[in-house]
């Protein structure tokens, strides 16, 4: 072998030669004295460089400790915005109900009850002042929400602009920023008016309320107009005025005579709609649902009732799940009846087809009744036997859409909550515990929310709770999917490709959930495990802080 090159000397003393070359050089050094001497001086030189390079002469720790502060990242910013928005929403609701309604009332009840002597004009002054505060307070908060929203959008656009100019932003960042900006655009804050208590709550004829109204009481009579939505809970609800939004009522007996621009939903024992016009759909859940002659429904009429009498007119379909269905009005499209008996009286007119899931002899048609389409009798058993879903193309397209949606939602979720990436499932008893926690969370949350909804002040929290619950069910599977993905890809820490891991996991989970027979059970299991992991993670994260 020839003498060594400088590269070999240098790399040999650094221990950086490949094993084979290293062995060759070692062999050569054993027999060549001059090269051995050379290597010795290269080694000394390396040590010399090393010792002089690792000198810390003249370095001192600065007297002033830098202030270690976490700079708010985009993620924290978005989170802070979402939380602020939610808080403001709750606060506004509480302000309106507690302060605007109850506090002022209580003050005056107290003043008169204890006959506290007040100077002339004091009550007027106080009332004006308090009203001002309650009104202005709401305005103030509304403006604050607007401010946050607008500033968020402005900052976000700035960020996008800067990122694009730097050409550093990838498409994902832009898409997510747009989504965030979109979700932060301030929605019109609906003011809310609540009326509670007492045997009788009335909204007078000449009264016009420009808000959404929630009314709860024994008897509720609405003669005036409500421009927003109207939610009424009571024993007896009578709505004679017009409702600009949706009308939702839950009462033993419900009578609606006014005009409803949106959807009308009534649930109770008797539900009567008389001479009213409904801009959207009508949903009736009651023992008896009665839609009288002069009622006009632009959308569908849907009834779940023992007795369903439909004499009005519907722009679209009439759908009935009832024991007895009587039609004496006009239906713009089809009639679909799941009922024991179906009577078409003399005034009825159906533009589309009639499908009656019952015995042919139970359908009666008066002479004057007009049915322009076909009358079909689809047999119940046949229709209720599910076709083999695995043989339809639709099924696979749906799964693909589901995958895409879960992927996008999961990306946002894991980006916003990086702690969710650390989810791990312990084996054995701990794993069971996680599933148990998940099950408890999934069962208890809707129950608590419903209970909260009964106290009107708790309503926004209840609504929030239901949203969180739905989110929990959805994201539970995503978090499991991410965990499965990292197991499949053998990702140890969270540094590996987030998107790829999530995608692989989601594919695996969706395939498992779609397995015939077992799929439903797997779905349930994954949901409670995921929910348990999520709850556990959030709890431990909160405890850490």
């Amino acid at each position: 072998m020839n003498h060594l090159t400088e590269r070999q000397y240098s790399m040999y003393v650094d221990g950086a030669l490949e094993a084979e070359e290293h062995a060759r050089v070692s062999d050569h050094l054993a027999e060549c004295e001059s090269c051995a001497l050379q290597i010795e001086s290269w080694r000394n030189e390396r040590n010399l460089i090393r010792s002089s390079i690792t000198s810390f002469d003249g370095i001192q720790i600065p007297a002033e400790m830098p202030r270690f502060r976490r700079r708010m990242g985009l993620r924290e910013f978005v989170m802070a915005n979402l939380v602020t928005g939610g808080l403001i929403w709750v606060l506004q609701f509480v302000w309106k109900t507690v302060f605007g309604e109850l506090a002022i009332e209580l003050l005056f009840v107290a003043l008169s009850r204890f006959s506290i002597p007040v100077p002339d004009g004091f009550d007027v002054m106080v009332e004006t002042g308090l009203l001002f505060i309650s009104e202005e307070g709401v305005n103030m908060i509304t403006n604050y929400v607007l401010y946050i929203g607008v500033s968020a959008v402005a900052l976000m656009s700035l960020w996008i602009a800067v990122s694009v100019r730097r050409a550093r932003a990838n498409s994902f960042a832009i898409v997510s920023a747009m989504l965030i900006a979109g979700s932060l655009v301030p929605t019109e804050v609906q003011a809310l008016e609540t009326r509670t208590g007492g045997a009788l709550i009335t909204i007078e004829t000449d009264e016009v309320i420009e808000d959404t109204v929630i009314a709860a009481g024994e008897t509720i009579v609405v003669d005036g107009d409500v421009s927003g939505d109207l939610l009424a809970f009571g024993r007896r609800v009578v709505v004679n005025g017009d409702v600009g939004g949706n009308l939702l009522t839950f009462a033993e007996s419900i009578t609606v005579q006014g005009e409803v621009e949106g959807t009308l939903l009534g649930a109770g024992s008797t539900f009567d709609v008389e001479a009213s016009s409904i801009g959207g759909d009508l949903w009736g859940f009651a023992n008896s649902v009665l839609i009288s002659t002069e009622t006009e429904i632009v959308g569908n009429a849907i009834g779940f009732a023992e007795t369903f009498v439909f004499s009005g007119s519907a722009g679209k379909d009439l759908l009935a799940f009832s024991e007895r269905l009587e039609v004496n009005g006009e239906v713009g499209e089809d009639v679909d009846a799941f009922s024991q008996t179906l009577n078409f009286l003399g005034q009825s007119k159906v533009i589309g087809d009639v499908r009656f899931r019952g015995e042919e002899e139970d359908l009666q048609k008066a002479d004057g009744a007009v049915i322009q389409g076909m009358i079909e009798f689809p047999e119940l058993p046949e229709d209720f036997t599910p076709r083999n879903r695995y043989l339809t193309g639709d099924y696979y397209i749906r799964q693909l859409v589901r995958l895409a949606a879960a992927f996008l939602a999961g990306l946002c979720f894991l980006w916003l909550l990086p702690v969710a990436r650390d989810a791990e499932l312990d084996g054995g008893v701990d794993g069971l515990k996680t599933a148990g926690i998940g099950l408890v969370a999934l069962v208890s949350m809707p129950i608590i929310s419903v209970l909260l909804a009964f106290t009107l002040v708790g309503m926004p929290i209840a609504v929030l709770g239901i949203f969180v619950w739905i989110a929990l069910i959805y994201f539970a599977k995503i978090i499991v999917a991410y965990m499965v993905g990292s197991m499949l890809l053998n990702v140890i820490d969270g540094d590996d490709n987030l998107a790829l891991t999530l995608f692989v996991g989601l594919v695996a989970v969706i395939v498992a959930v779609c397995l015939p027979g077992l799929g439903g059970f797997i779905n349930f299991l994954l949901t409670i495990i995921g929910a348990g992991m999520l709850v556990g993670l959030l709890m431990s994260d909160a405890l850490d802080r």
Partner: protein
Amino acid sequence: MATNVAFEILYREYYVRVFGLCRQLLGSTPLAEDAAQETFMRAYRHFDRYDTTLPFWQWIATIANRYCIDVLRKRSRSGALFDEEQFELDQVSSDTPSPLIQVLGEQDASVLSGAISALPDKYRVPIVLAYFHDASYDEIAEDLAISRNHVGVLLLRAKQQLRKSLEKGAMP
């Protein structure tokens, strides 16, 4: 703020070493001050990503390396610090200067330290990574985005350059 206290302890313990590493990588004390601060700031911000099973030094040194290499890349306008086209032949040349140990003799080690600081970026960075941070050739190759062989050549060139500059300096 428990993490703050813990981090301040780490700061006190590692500041000198991080500063030393940055000073050698950047070849400048004022730049190293900024770099050390920035390194600790970055470490603080991403402290949740620190794998506690690894030595802290290894982790923070990697942060310092990346930051300093970024600074050097930005400084050299082209951005290509360790261009492959500068791949030199690694044959023994006839005028190879004698090893440092002979040139330097009994001289002060600070002379060598100064010579290292004066090396051009492309030689200084690999030598600091190799002998200060104790990075392997593979790690250096990855950090600088060059081939392993190129690392070997750069290190050899760095040593030759050191010899040359010290030989010149040693002659009156």
